[in-house]
């Protein structure tokens, strides 16, 4: 199963750095034990929430990119749900979107390489018209 997902979750604003690291490491062990792979961990820092969540106005955003199957995601979401300091989370599947973007990029690159000829002709034409 090589699907990749992005788990973004918000923890309470008063959570200290060590506790965040501990939470992340427990999640990482959960991922590796069920056959997945952690691609990246990003701390996006403290941010103001757009609306109140569990009486909090601020939150610390964390982003985890993992590779693995649906069972793994199920387990991770269960863990996030029971972890008390986590106030909100969202999981987004990203591999299909990434595939689409790569395809578009490849097409654009191919197009950029092929046509360096036409501009000279067009320039001559407009010059004739203005004359």
């Amino acid at each position, binding site marked *: 199963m090589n699907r990749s997902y992005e788990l973004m979750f918000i923890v309470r604003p008063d959570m200290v750095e060590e506790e965040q690291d501990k939470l992340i490491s427990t999640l990482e062990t959960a991922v590796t034990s069920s056959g997945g792979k952690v691609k990246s961990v990003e701390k996006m820092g403290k*941010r*103001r929430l*757009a*609306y109140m969540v569990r009486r909090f106005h601020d939150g610390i955003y964390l982003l985890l990119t993992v590779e693995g199957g649906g069972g793994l995601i199920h387990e991770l979401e269960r863990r996030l749900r029971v972890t008390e300091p986590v106030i909100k*989370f969202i999981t987004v599947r990203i591999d299909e979107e990434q595939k689409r*973007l790569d395809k578009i990029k490849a097409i654009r690159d191919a197009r950029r390489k092929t046509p360096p000829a036409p501009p000279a002709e067009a320039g001559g034409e407009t010059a004739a018209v203005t004359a």
Partner: protein
Amino acid sequence: MAEEIRVAAAGEGSSGGERPSGGDRPSGPDRSDRGERRPPRPGGPGGGREGGRKYFRRKKVCKFCVEKIEAINYKDVRLLAQFVAESGKIVPRRLTGVCTPHQRRLSSAIKQARNIALLPFAGRAS
């Protein structure tokens, strides 16, 4: 060349003076052939031409097509916020000019961002 300028100027004047929708509407309900042969809609791009009234509106273009932005991500709040009204609503395509495929992606990205409290569901972020 001169003619064109004159026509354009006339068009500007008429569009300012009378609202296009005001002229035809009152006779509408009385007509027996209602529903057929409607007068051209005033709002549509280029619709002013056939109606005899000439006014010009800049053609709206899709920001994502023009700037070649393909990745519409829910994390990109600054991009998404441009397409969210003050009230938190998603701005309709007819106002922003975004093309259908991009609007589809945009709206789903906005909804994801709302879910993770990056954008408000309603009202200004407070």
